Structures are given as structure tokens and as C-alpha cells.
């Protein structure tokens, strides 16, 4: 790292000796150090509890080092089949999510396809919808007794099913769909801020449209695509609900369902087993990160926001506009209309019934009435909002500075990026227990308050913030700051006045994403909330575990409506600031 930096520095010196005076490296180093301490304080305690849980056993009150858990996990029946399934599932989901999200992002940002607002609407609403609701919606649609299969039986007179969702294919389909809005959002911001000169150069040199996309556009988006693929891959390896509800009935076991079994064989749950698997996962992720780091080493190559003004050109598709529009409409139907329709249907029933004429007489607004009558939800709303706003703001502030320091190769800053990515491997329950133990032993009075949830959320979402900020930062060429430095600005003035505004779209997108995630994730608040810090997630979990699916659907839909309104407002602002900054139409 140091040699690289020195080499870099030498080059700068050769390029322009006077620059050295304006870019005092040490000032930024202090910041990197401070930020390093903050990151370490956040990430290391849960990591410590993870390692402790995985590598020690306690017998008769004595705790000792042991690899017993590793051998026990490796000896589990069918663990290797499960591992293979996990990898296939994660790979499939990542590819599908990138494909759907990527194609949509490209069509929307770089072509003249009609119906673009549909894509934004789809993304924003789906980001505001709780996962548990989304997963059940698609499952309701595709299940054996779901509308698609029942109609197939009615039409053909068959007794079987048209689509068998229970299996690896169904798991990948649902998980891939679940993650595609995230891909759309992040790839979209990459593609929007694209310098078209390189594409124009390619076309002038005789490359066709397809070749230009393949050799220029795709290549320049590679860091974003890889970062996202990795994100979806890791999250899918850790996913539990989809494998439990969709995989297991088809006898497809994955690591998370196995570990869930293993953990719950004893009471209280065996956190050590979950920690062991997480540690293995940490190893895998470290390897992935290493290669990812190598691929994006020469980050400047990917910088597309430079000092020159530009206007990304939109490809005229000609007659291809119609099939392109069809893709957007299909995506809109699949990701938004169908799940929402089935949820509306579910929310109007006293108990769930598949879509059929005989169930229409049951329809009732009782579920909505119950949600509105309960004053508890209002109080939960306040708590949930406060937690989400603080979490998103803290995460994006920390990671924006970290990404800047990392991309500008400030010594030691690489560690920030790595630390910021570590929490990806914490399963919710391991992180929850780690944070819980920390604040039971460090009595600063936040146990049982909403602030312990904020703390856990900040750790949990650090990787997302890091990815958003990093991907945004990669696009900002250093020449802009250098211009500021030459005009006499300190590095921090440069960051504040030049980098931050350019980074704003990525930061706002990240903020929004984390805000929406923090309002709908179940596992952490359920474990960490105290009597006076209950959140909406706890209420949803209560409904979910009590079979009040229809009331959950009603609450969830109202919730999504509120979230979508907020998301739309923010998106509007983000777009507006984007218009101001890049002169885009």
C-alpha cells in the first residue's frame, strides 16, 4: 500500500511540483485515522463476539479454545450439498438481479425508451415494501394453490401445476426479483453520470452500437456491476426466508436453513454455530473482496465525472423502442402490479384464500379498520422513523468521507473500505447478540433504548453506505479537487465544496436505500428493542408469527404507501439537484 502511494506521489510530483504544496497528505491521514477508530469501534466488537462464539466452547463454567464447532458443522448430514445449493442460489440470484436491474437501468438512463417513469415507480415502491411482505406476495402468486396454477388447472382440466415454485429455480427467481431494484438504482446512477466521449470515440472509430455497449459502456460500469453482484451474492448466501419458504418444501437445503436447524436444536439458541458459519463466510468474502480490490485498483480509469462538461447521450433505438418499452412494462407488472394486487386481495380477506369467485363474498375492510383503530401504530411510527433517519444520516456521512479517502489513496484508508464491508457477513442474530453483549457490559445506558437499535443498524448498513459512496466516488476525477487545491482550497474545503456536491446523487440514493431498509428489517429490532423502544418491525413480526397475514398485508400496504411518498419526495429532490449539477435533461 505504502509503496503504491509513494509511487503515485512521485508521479504527481513529476507532473506538477507545485501541487505538492497544496495537497498536504498528513492532514487527510489524521482524518483517516479518526475515521478508522470510529469504524473499528463499530465493527470490531461484534467481530470479537463472532470469533469468540465460533472458537470457544463452554463446559462446566469453563470456557476454552476449540475447533469443535467447525468439525461438528462439517459432519452435518448433507452439509456439502447445502453449500453447493447455497452457491448456486446466490450466483443465480446475483446474475438475475444484475440482468433485470442492469437492462432496466440502461434502457432508462441511456436510451430514448418510452415509459421510463414506470421503472422509477417500480423501484421506489418496491424499496419501500417490507421483504417479508414481498416474499409472501410472490409465493402467493406462484404457489401450488396460487392464482396462476389454479387458473391453469381450470383452463386445462389438469390436476398438476404449471409452475412448480418449490425448488432452486423458484428460489432464484424470487430472490433475484427482490434485489433487482437495488441494482437498478445504483447502476442507474453510474450510467447517468457517464462521460459519453469514450462511447463517441468508439463509434467514430467504426464500432457498432452493440460493440460500443460491450466494449465501452459495460467495461466502464464494471466496478459498479461487480460491487453489486458481490453484494447480492453475499446477501443471498445469508438469506433465510426465501430458502425456508420456497426451497425446503422442494427439499432444497441451503447453509442458512441447516444452520437454523443446528442453532435451534438447543435452548437457548446455539449462537456459536451461527458464528462458525459466519466465520467461514467471512473467509469467502475476504477472498472475493481481494479480487474485487484488484479489479478496481486503477480506479481513475473508471472516473467518468471530470472537469469537462458533458451531456450523456441517449441512444435512439428506432423501432427497437417498442420491445424496449415492453421490457419496462413487463418489469413494472412483475415487480409491482402483480405483488401489490395479490397483497390488496389478501388484505381484504379475514383469512387468506386464493383468488377465486367464492372468496369474493368474504371481502372486508376490517383489517384496515383494525390498523387505523390501534393507537399503538402511531407511536411505533415515530420510533421507527427516528431510528431510520439517524441511521441513514450517520452511515452516509461516515462512508462518504471514507470513500473519498479510499479512492484518493490516503495511506491506511484502504482499511476503512475493508472494515466497512466486514458487517456484510454478520447474520442478523449474531450481530444482535454481539451488540447486546457489548452494551450489557459497557453500561452507558443505551441498552433497551432505541439507540442500541441505531447502533446495530449503523453497523449493519455500513457496507451498503460504503458501496454507494465508493461507486459514486470512483466517478469523480481527481482533477476537480486539484483545481480547487490550486485555487487555494484545503483538502477538506475541496471535499466539502467540490466532491460532496458531485457525490450528492449517490449519497442521497444511499441514504434513501438505508432509510427504507432500516424501516422494514425485522430481525435486529425484535432482538434489541426494549419496553419503550418498540418499532414497526416488531409489530409486523408479531402479526407474521401469529398468522395474521391479512392484517399484516393491510398494515404493510399502508406502510409502503407512506414510505413511497417519502421516497418519491427524496427522489424528486435528488433528481432536481442532479439536473442542476450535470445539466441533464
Amino acid at each position: 500500500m505504502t509503496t503504491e502511494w509513494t509511487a503515485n506521489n512521485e508521479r504527481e510530483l513529476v507532473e506538477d511540483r507545485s501541487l505538492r504544496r497544496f495537497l498536504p497528505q498528513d492532514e487527510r491521514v489524521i482524518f483517516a485515522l479518526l475515521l478508522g477508530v470510529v469504524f473499528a469501534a463499530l465493527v470490531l466488537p461484534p467481530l470479537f463476539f463472532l470469533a469468540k462464539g465460533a472458537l470457544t466452547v463452554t463446559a462446566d463454567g469453563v470456557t476454552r479454545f476449540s475447533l469443535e464447532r467447525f468439525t461438528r458443522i462439517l459432519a452435518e448430514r448433507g452439509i456439502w450439498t447445502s453449500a453447493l445449493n447455497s452457491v448456486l442460489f446466490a450466483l443465480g440470484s446475483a446474475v438475475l438481479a444484475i440482468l433485470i436491474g442492469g437492462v432496466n437501468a440502461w434502457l432508462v438512463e441511456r436510451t430514448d425508451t418510452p415509459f421510463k417513469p414506470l421503472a422509477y415507480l417500480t423501484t421506489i415502491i418496491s424499496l419501500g415494501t417490507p421483504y417479508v411482505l414481498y416474499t409472501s406476495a410472490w409465493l402467493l402468486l406462484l404457489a401450488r394453490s396460487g392464482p396462476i396454477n389454479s387458473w391453469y388447472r381450470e383452463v386445462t382440466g389438469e390436476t398438476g401445476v404449471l409452475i412448480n415454485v418449490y425448488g432452486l429455480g423458484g428460489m432464484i427467481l424470487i430472490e433475484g426479483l427482490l434485489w433487482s431494484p437495488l441494482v437498478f438504482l445504483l447502476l442507474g446512477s453510474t450510467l447517468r453520470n457517464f462521460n459519453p466521449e469514450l462511447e463517441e470515440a468508439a463509434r467514430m472509430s467504426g464500432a457498432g452500437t452493440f460493440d460500443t455497449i460491450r466494449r465501452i459502456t459495460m467495461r466502464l460500469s464494471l466496478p459498479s456491476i461487480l460491487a453489486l453482484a458481490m453484494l447480492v451474492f453475499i446477501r443471498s448466501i445469508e438469506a433465510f426466508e426465501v430458502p425456508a419458504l420456497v426451497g425446503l418444501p422442494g427439499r432444497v437445503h441451503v447453509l442458512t436453513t441447516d444452520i437454523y436447524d443446528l442453532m435451534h436444536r438447543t435452548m437457548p439458541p446455539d449462537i456459536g454455530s451461527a458464528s462458525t458459519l459466519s466465520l467461514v463466510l467471512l473467509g469467502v468474502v475476504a477472498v472475493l473482496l481481494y479480487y474485487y480490490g484488484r479489479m478496481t485498483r486503477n480506479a481513475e480509469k473508471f472516473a467518468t465525472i471530470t472537469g469537462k462538461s458533458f451531456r450523456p447521450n441517449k441512444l435512439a433505438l428506432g423501432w427497437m423502442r417498442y420491445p424496449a418499452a415492453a421490457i419496462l412494462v413487463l418489469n413494472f407488472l412483475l415487480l409491482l402490479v402483480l405483488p401489490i394486487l395479490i397483497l390488496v386481495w389478501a388484505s381484504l380477506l379475514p383469512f387468506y384464500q386464493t383468488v377465486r369467485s367464492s372468496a369474493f363474498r368474504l371481502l372486508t375492510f376490517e383489517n384496515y379498520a383494525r390498523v387505523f383503530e390501534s393507537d399503538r401504530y402511531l407511536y411505533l411510527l415515530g420510533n421507527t422513523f427516528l431510528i431510520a433517519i439517524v441511521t441513514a444520516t450517520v452511515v452516509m456521512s461516515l462512508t462518504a468521507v471514507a470513500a473519498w479517502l479510499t479512492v484518493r489513496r490516503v495511506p491506511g484508508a484502504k482499511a476503512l473500505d475493508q472494515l466497512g464491508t466486514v458487517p456484510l457477513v454478520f447474520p442478523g442474530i449474531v450481530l444482535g447478540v454481539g451488540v447486546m453483549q457489548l452494551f450489557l457490559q459497557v453500561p452507558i445506558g443505551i441498552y433497551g433504548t432505541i439507540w442500541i437499535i441505531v447502533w446495530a443498524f449503523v453497523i449493519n448498513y455500513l457496507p451498503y453506505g460504503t458501496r454507494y459512496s465508493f461507486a459514486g466516488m470512483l466517478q469523480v476525477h481527481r482533477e476537480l479537487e486539484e483545481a480547487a487545491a490550486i485555487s487555494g482550497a484545503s483538502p477538506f474545503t475541496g471535499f466539502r465544496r467540490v466532491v460532496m456536491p458531485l457525490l450528492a446523487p449517490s449519497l442521497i440514493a444511499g441514504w434513501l436505500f438505508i432509510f427504507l431498509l432500516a424501516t422494514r428489517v425485522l430481525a435486529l429490532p425484535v432482538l434489541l428493542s426494549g419496553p419503550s423502544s418498540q418499532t414497526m418491525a416488531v409489530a409486523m413480526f408479531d402479526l407474521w408469527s401469529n398468522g395474521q397475514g391479512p392484517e399484516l398485508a393491510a398494515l404493510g400496504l399502508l406502510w409502503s404507501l407512506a414510505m413511497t411518498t417519502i421516497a418519491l419526495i427524496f427522489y424528486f429532490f435528488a433528481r432536481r439537484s442532479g439536473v442542476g449539477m450535470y445539466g441533464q435533461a
Partner: protein
Amino acid sequence: MSHGAARVFARAWLASLCLLAVAALSHPARAADAALIAAAKKEGQLTWYTTQIINQFARPAAEAFEKKYGIKVNYVRANSNEVALRVLNEGRARNMQADVFDGTTATASLKKEGLVAKWLPDNVSRLPKEYVDQEGYWVATNLYVLTPGYNTELVKKGSEPRTFQDLLDPKYKGKLVWNSTSSSSAAPGFVAVVLASMGEEKGTAYLRELAKQNVAGLAVAARQVLDQVIAGEYAIALNIFNNHAVISAAKGAPVDWIPMQPALGVLSVISVTKDAPHPNAGRLFLEFLISEEGQKIYRAADYLPVDPNVPPKDLSLRPDGEKFKVVFKTPEEIDREMPRWTQLYQSIFR
């Protein structure tokens, strides 16, 4: 202690003695209560970690208690695992927040960790002895009876399987479902009841036959398994809480439960924590839930009370020991035997 303070103390002590004496004279049996109530009121609040559903039971119970004693109940709802984790971590960190906690299996392991107080109110003496821990750490508040449940549109009422043997009928192949986790309300609980009623050898042979039916295993709660049956994904759930079927059927859902013999009985037990921050309020609350008044709240929520004088709303839900037999497993038995049941389930059905 200063002279003034000593005098105040002495007076207060005398006063409380008098109060006790009066209480003892007027209601001999309620003597302990008066002292407990006074001490509890002084504490003013308590924290209850519960597995009970908030709007069905936790909130009505807390409100009734607050109304009666003016003591605030702070409840935190989570499932058994999370309740156990919280109590365990708080106890190990010597920073106990909970005063009272309930659940079906967590108590046994927390007892081993020394985190449960050895205390039971006097009013437990009227309960059947299998509902009270002989060592004095827990008392059951309500019963869960685990039976199969079925979708009445997919399996006609009257033709439903009545015995374990009926479940082996080839027409049910691929239509059976259960929860695949290590829980008494999951496959291992069903294994337990089969072993208990048929013995090891015959029971194992039966389970091998059942495995040929391709029973779908879901790693979700028993309640969600039943919901899938109601939605029509599967015809029969093998091991559900029978009151869940009744609650859903009352809303018009096409579901019923089967009194298959014997069924598995599980106790929902409640305890006061060791080193509870509000021990007296906690004790008073526990006593309240066990009292006839408290038991009626369970009844109102369609649960099965333990008090023999408070029958459940639907009488058939409760095993009578004659027509409807149940194998009861205590938290200790479940804690001890769960690994064996799970092992057997895994080796036969995976």
C-alpha cells in the same frame, strides 16, 4: 443512622407490623398478599418478557393488572428463542432487566444457568400438580395441545384421518406438511408423541413408513405452517396448536383440528427472574396471571387455562384424559430429549 431517621424507620416498621396484623386477622389466607402488594406498589412497575401475542393476550393482561394494582407493566414480545437469549445475556452480564418471563422451553435451560428465582405463589396449590414445577421454579399459565389440523375443502369433514395409521394412506402423499425445526411444535414433537405411544421400535418403524409420504418440512413457526394449510398449499399439517385452528375457523377459515390419540401437551410456563429489578411487582404479576381472574383472560383469548375451575371456551380443546388423551412433556423433559427426537427426525426424513 441518625436519630431522626431511626425514629421514622421504627415508626414505619411498627405501622407495617400493625397493618400486617390487621390484614392477618381479617383475611388469614391473604396475609402474604398484603405485604406483597405494598412492596410491589412501592416498586411501581415491572418488565415482562413474553411470548404471548400482544393484542390477543399481553396487552389485555397488562391493562387488567395496571387497573387493579396501579402498577405499570412494560412488556416486550419476542419468540421463545429471543426471550431466552435476552434473559441469558442480561443474566450473564449481571444486568437483569426482566422481572418475569414466559415460554415453553426456555425456562429449563435458564434454570440450569441459575437465572430463575425459586419462588411460587400460594395460589398454585389449587392447580393439578403436573402444571407446577416440583422444584418450585415455574408454574404453567396455559396449555398448548398439539394435534394435526386439516383444510376442510381439500379433505372432507368426516373423512379426515383419525389415527396415525390413517396418515399412511397413499392419497395423502405429498399433501402433508410440518415445521422442520427443533421445536415441540415441529416434526420432533410429532416424533416424541409417536415414540411415547408406540414405543421405540414400533414408533421408529412407523416413522419410516411416514417418510414415504414425502412430508414437506418448513423452517417456519407452527402457526405459519397452519396458514399454508388454510391457503390450500397442503391438505394436512401434522403438528399444530389446536386452538389456532379454532381461532381461524371462528373467522370462517376452512380448517379444523383432529383429536388424534394421543396428542402432545406442552406447558407455557412463567417464572420470576433471579435478581429481578422489581421482584415484588414481578411476583404479584405472576400471582395475578395464575389467579382465577388472570386465568379468565387466557380463556377470553381462546387459550387453554390451567385452572380446573376456568374451562376453555371450546371444551373439546382440552384433553379430558379419557376420550382425548395427551402426553404431557415438561420444559425439563423437552430440554433433555429434544436432541434425540431431532436426531431421529433428521435421520429418517432428510
